[in-house]
């Protein structure tokens, strides 16, 4: 009996310890990054753990906010967030709604064609050549047009539309409503939770995406925020900041960490909304199509 008691105590202890440690690994970097971004040179360059800024200094942010490409990056990212999300929702609904109607021709084939795009892609080079042919290279539209066609989101939307009772739609049809009217007056108002979920998926994709920028855009004024920060953080392009007339330039570490904060701000602001809708969203996604 005594041995069993001991086991009952030790197992929860280990579970709590492991989980706390994991949470700590995620939380600590954010504290560290914030501290270094607000620290003067000596403190920022010190090795080891960082918790509270002892030598407060916001020079890194001043330098960063004077850098024009941070602002154009923010503008471009905002553009792709707004236009990209609206376009994604439009394309998703326009594909899913007809496919959810029982009288739509060739449904099975079309769904299979959608599925195929999820498991096979042409590859980097054919995609690049396509963008070139379409004159989308070095254009902001390359951020929003290709990503609007997302088969997974169409399937999620489709399974939601199918769950709307047919009787509701039939009743409207008998009352003389046309397809478009049914879509806007009945189907979409009922689908707001899944529209929000897909909209947020798209929003997060557009905040964090940089690959299309890296592959298709070389004009720096059209760079998205992620790519601007990528140059500072990963490619170590710090020369725009070292030429400043500032006598005591901020440490490169402070600059980098400030760029991390500036870049993650949109996601951190959205985080509470994301938490609320995403947990439900993954459940919708798990429904077998």
């Amino acid at each position, binding site marked *: 009996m005594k041995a*069993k008691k001991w086991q009952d105590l030790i*197992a*929860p202890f280990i*579970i709590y310890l492991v*989980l706390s440690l994991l*949470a700590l690994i*995620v939380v600590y970097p954010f504290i*560290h990054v914030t501290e270094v971004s607000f620290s003067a040179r000596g403190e920022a360059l010190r*090795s*080891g*753990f960082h918790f509270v800024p002892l030598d407060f200094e916001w020079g890194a942010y001043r330098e960063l906010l004077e850098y024009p490409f941070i602002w154009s990056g923010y503008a471009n990212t905002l553009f792709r967030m707004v236009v990209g999300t609206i376009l994604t929702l*439009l*394309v*998703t609904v*326009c*594909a899913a*709604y*007809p496919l959810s109607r029982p009288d739509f021709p060739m449904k099975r084939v079309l769904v299979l*064609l959608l599925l195929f*795009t999820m*498991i096979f*892609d*042409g*590859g*980097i*080079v*054919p*995609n690049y*050549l*396509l963008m070139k042919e379409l004159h989308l290279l070095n254009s902001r539209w390359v951020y929003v*047009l*290709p990503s*609007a*066609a997302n088969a997974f989101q169409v399937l999620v939307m489709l399974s939601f539309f199918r769950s709307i009772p047919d009787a509701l739609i039939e009743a409207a049809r008998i009352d003389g409503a046309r*397809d478009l009217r049914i879509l806007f007056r009945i189907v979409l108002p009922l689908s707001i939770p899944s529209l929000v979920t897909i909209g947020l998926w798209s929003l997060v994709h557009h*905040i*964090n*995406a*940089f690959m299309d920028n*890296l*592959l298709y855009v070389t004009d720096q004024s059209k760079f998205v925020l*992620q*790519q601007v*920060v*990528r140059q500072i*953080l*990963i490619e170590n392009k710090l020369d725009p900041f070292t030429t400043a007339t500032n006598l005591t330039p901020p440490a490169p*570490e402070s600059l980098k*960490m400030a760029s*991390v904060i500036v*870049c993650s701000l949109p*996601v951190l602001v*959205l*985080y509470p909304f994301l*938490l609320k809708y*995403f947990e439900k969203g993954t*459940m919708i996604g*798990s429904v*077998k*199509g």
Partner: protein
Amino acid sequence: MALFLFSFVFFFIFKYGPLYGVIIAFKDFRVVDGIWGSPWVGLQHFQELFQNGDFYRLLKNTLLLNFYLLIFAFPAPIILALLLNEVRSRFFQKFVQTTMYLPHFVSWVIMSGLIIYFLSPTTGVVAEIVGWFGAEPVFYMGKKEYFRSIIVASAILKDLGWGSIIYFAALSGINPEMQESAIIDGANRWQRILRINIPSIMPTVAIMFILSLGGFLSANFEQIINLLNPVTYETGDVIDTYVYRVGLQQFQYSYTAAIGLFKSLVGLLLILGANLTVRKLSRGENGLW
């Protein structure tokens, strides 16, 4: 109908359009002649490919890395969900979940920048921790033998919490009476996890497994491209990073399109095979289609 046409155009251009460009893998692509006008060369690029030593290094790196991700990163969220399910305190559960979701929403640019920073031998925190145990700091990002471990570990950290949502939901769906009767029968915690919890979530695991193979071989491109540097090419250079570097930056379009096509075909076979296997094993109950 008009609605569908609108979406159809998007899918046709951006998902099926690149498939047309794939034919340059069988041609000698010259920019002035365009995709159609360039001369056919048959399988010449594929022959070159199989004779090139680079190809086997890329194939080995791609397969090994994805294999490690499959055996380490795939089960990690399942284990986290099982652990979370054992926690009695709702508050602690919620706290761990909310923190662990965060990295999922942070871009790979930020994640990679922080990984490089925290692993730095001079200012990095990891060097500090290693120092407590009397080990010398190492330049982890510049050592080819560490590269795969860093990729796998950071991939786990990023999607651990997020991936656990779906398993956690499946675990909450288990009938509590089953647990109670097991307790009455004298089953301990470990036996209950092994005999009730794990079998109950197996259908979800099977579906997630097939879905994870969908992006097999092309997954983690965003991550690898940010963490890779010339020193680690030997172990870290995968098909996608090579295609990007040699294809788009050195303009060897046809040759790299051939590698890309090879990768896409292998990926397609893998997912079809996995779906078939899962269906056979579960006697037609699981599987995506």
